């Protein structure tokens, strides 16, 4: 079976592609961050009204919601690559899963951290064992567990398969996090955390929030590809193409 896209599945051919894509994603990240932060700070109301009269601190939403979304999305991406790796035995897929994990963990931590600083002024507490908060914390432990399990096994291929399986089992947390506040009957998922409903958000606030989400996503690509390139070099260090690359570098 020689599908065309298998060509890109080889670490040797993806290494230079990733190298060319990294600056593109960095530029997109910075551009979107600049727009999102400017809009979030200067084009949105300084306080909220109606049934949710929060003051300036509501602006944490521009970091908090995008990082929470990315924490869940990157976990799905991680599991996707891990599953492809298990089925097709492609080396690059496992490397991809490995490269995504730290960025996902950082976003999960950021969501929890900014949530704590938002919870203190609005709800009155940094932390509470609310279903949404607890399930997000479990997601953080899953990322850490994946990274720890992978680094605990010396044989890379065994480490890849074992941690991929852990990641797949952990996928259970993503729907749990989503349903912890968005179940159809509000009485069944009574929580401290409010439900989510994008139609009840002011246009300017929504715009900054979505721009920041895109910015974080682009950052995710940039960081993952940078990490991927070092993983490729480490794992393929013995291969001729890496040796040739090193020789070319030395001569230059």
């Amino acid at each position, binding site marked *: 079976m020689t599908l065309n896209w298998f060509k890109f599945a080889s670490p040797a051919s993806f290494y230079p592609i990733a190298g060319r894509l990294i600056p593109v994603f960095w530029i997109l990240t910075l551009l979107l961050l600049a727009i999102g932060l400017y809009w979030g700070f200067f084009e949105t*109301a300084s306080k909220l009204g109606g049934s949710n009269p929060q003051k300036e601190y509501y602006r944490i939403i521009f970091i908090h919601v995008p990082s929470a979304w990315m924490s869940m999305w990157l976990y799905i991406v991680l599991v996707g690559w891990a*599953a492809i790796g298990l089925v097709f035995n492609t080396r690059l897929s496992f490397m991809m899963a490995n490269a995504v994990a730290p960025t996902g963990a950082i976003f999960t931590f950021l969501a929890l951290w900014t949530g704590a600083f938002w919870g203190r002024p609005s709800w009155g*507490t940094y932390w509470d064992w609310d279903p949404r908060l607890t399930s997000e914390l479990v997601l953080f432990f899953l990322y850490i567990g994946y990274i720890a399990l992978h680094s605990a096994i010396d044989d890379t291929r065994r480490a890849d398969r074992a941690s991929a399986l852990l990641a797949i089992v952990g996928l259970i947390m993503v729907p749990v996090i989503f349903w912890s506040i968005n179940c159809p009957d509000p009485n069944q998922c*009574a929580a401290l955390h*409010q439900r989510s409903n994008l139609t009840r958000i002011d246009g300017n606030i929504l715009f900054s929030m979505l721009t920041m989400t895109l910015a974080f996503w682009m950052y995710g690509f940039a960081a993952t590809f940078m990490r991927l390139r070092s993983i490729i070099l480490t794992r393929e260090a013995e291969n001729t193409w890496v040796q040739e690359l090193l020789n070319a570098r030395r001569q230059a």
Partner: protein
Amino acid sequence: MKARQKRLVFVGLAVLGVAAASTLALTALKGNISYFFSPSQVVANEAPQDHVFRIGGLVTEGTVRREGDGLTVHFDVTDNAETVKVAYTGILPDLFSEGKGVVAKGRLGPDGVFLAEEVLAKHDEEYMPPEVASTLKTTHAEGVAETAIQASEATN
């Protein structure tokens, strides 16, 4: 069956298994995730009598009363069906106000007053600047009024 297809089946089964497990877990948890009890449940004696639990509901309008020390607050929590009296000594969160959501952690006193150790404010998912929020309210009120008028015209 090729080795790759076997692995595909294996991974597919693993994902299906996880999905089934999560569905079962969520179904089992339905209604059992009592993060807090509603005033109705408290009145119906469904809440634990002997240890700490949380109640959640709305602060009844016009019931917030402060004692002379300035720190102890009394208020009623309602779910629009039943009401529980709450006493709390401490600093209330910024968003605590009458008619708004609240979650209180504490014990039920012998006289039926809930003695709160911690009071948290709940807020909803509406993120609107004050002027937009007030317009929305007015339009909503107008809409309700119009529907009422139409309904009365229809009956006449």
